């Protein structure tokens, strides 16, 4: 009887005996993510479930990521097979208005410059000794696009999934802090004060809005089929939005599906933050390279904006180039705010939204092209 009591009490003590400094550190990391999400409001929809998942998985003895465990089941159901990020894309497509790009399609090209950070960071990661597949996953942080980063990382470097995802979402939330100094550094006061002529008010017709996602899916899918899951799901969501005949599905994609999957995605990413996987020097390198990727995206976008301004005879404010990233519509708002700070008569929101739409599509296309190139080289 006494032995039985001791054995039962031992069950309570098991967790205390098993916990080590690495687990405690990761519990602190989980709490820090919760703090950033709850108290600082940084991407709370993702950082709260990620932080809580990190806490759950680092409590020893619970075995939540062991085969059959609660978190392992969710992870296998949606991350291993990449379903969760793709379902998020359906929601993003249903929430995105591609209308601004019809008003001035040329501004879409700024979305290409905003992806340059992906490719330069890929090279930097290779120089630092990361294997090619890992470098691809790290570079994709520069897409500034959480689901794309998760999709590529889960496919090619699952051991980096936690670092890549947390870096991508953290830096996305820091766009209003990271971008303005780079924008100011690379432009003159005269350029920042430049007032752009009003964007021609071209409303896209319903037919154009409906044909757009269908046509882009077919064209993009044929050119880079490896990226079709990404492109196809975002365009499906947009078709639900623009068709006007499936309001229930549109609403579900924007709300119920997006919300449920965001929760499951977040907690699954948190579940990959086990101490033995996350607490490695390479995690810090991933965070550092991710920051460089995002800074390079902004710099390339602004420099491309300057070139565009030069070619247009000074009609383009180069600041809008910084909106050529996927953080939608946050980057466009940052551009508008910086422009207004310099010149109260400057209204950059509409052209910045067009560039930002280009960044949204550009991040998916960049990942698609990269996957196609990898397939062409026989690497995947």
């Amino acid at each position, binding site marked *: 009887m006494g032995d039985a009591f001791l054995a039962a009490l031992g069950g309570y003590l098991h967790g205390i005996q098993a916990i080590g400094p690495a687990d405690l550190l990761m519990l602190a990391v989980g709490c820090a993510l919760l703090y950033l999400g709850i108290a600082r409001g940084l991407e709370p929809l993702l950082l709260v479930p990620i932080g809580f998942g990190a806490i759950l998985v680092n409590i020893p003895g619970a075995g939540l990521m062991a085969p059959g465990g609660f978190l392992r089941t969710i992870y296998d159901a949606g991350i291993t097979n990449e379903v969760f990020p793709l379902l998020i894309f359906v929601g993003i497509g249903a929430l995105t208005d591609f209308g601004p790009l019809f008003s001035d*399609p040329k501004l879409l090209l700024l979305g*290409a410059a905003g992806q340059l950070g992906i*490719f330069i960071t*890929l*090279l930097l990661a290779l120089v630092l000794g990361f294997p090619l597949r890992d470098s691809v996953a790290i570079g994709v942080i520069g897409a500034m696009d959480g689901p794309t980063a998760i999709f590529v990382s889960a496919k090619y470097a699952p051991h980096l999934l936690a670092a890549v995802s947390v870096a991508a979402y953290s830096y996305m939330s820091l766009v209003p802090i990271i971008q303005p100094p780079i924008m100011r550094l690379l432009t003159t006061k005269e350029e920042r004060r430049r007032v752009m002529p009003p964007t021609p008010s*071209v409303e896209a017709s319903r037919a*154009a809005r409906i044909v757009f996602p269908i046509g882009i899916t077919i064209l*993009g899918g044929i050119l880079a089929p490896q990226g079709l899951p990404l492109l196809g799901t975002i365009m499906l969501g947009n078709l639900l939005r623009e068709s006007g005949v499936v309001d229930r599905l549109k609403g579900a994609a924007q709300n119920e599906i997006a919300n449920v999957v965001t929760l499951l995605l977040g907690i699954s990413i948190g579940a990959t933050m086990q101490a033995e996987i996350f607490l490695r020097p390479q995690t810090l390198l991933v965070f550092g390279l991710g920051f460089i990727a995002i800074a390079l995206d902004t710099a390339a976008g602004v420099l491309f904006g300057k070139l565009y301004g030069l070619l247009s005879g000074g009609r383009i404010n180069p600041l809008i180039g910084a909106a050529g990233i996927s953080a939608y519509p946050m980057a466009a708002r940052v551009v508008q705010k910086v422009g207004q700070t310099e010149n109260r008569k400057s209204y950059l929101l509409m052209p910045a939204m067009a560039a930002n739409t280009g960044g949204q599509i*550009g991040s998916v*296309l960049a990942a698609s092209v990269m996957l196609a190139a990898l397939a062409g080289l026989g690497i995947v």
Partner: protein
Amino acid sequence: MSAELQLGVVIAVVGSGGTLLMLGIVALFSAVLRRLFPAKR
């Protein structure tokens, strides 16, 4: 230059060029749609 770095350079060049090309196609497609299906004013 290591073989992996060479592959990385190829991917970076093809990837950035391909992204610009694909976005160019999207921009062209948008312009064509705008012309084919003009909005009623």
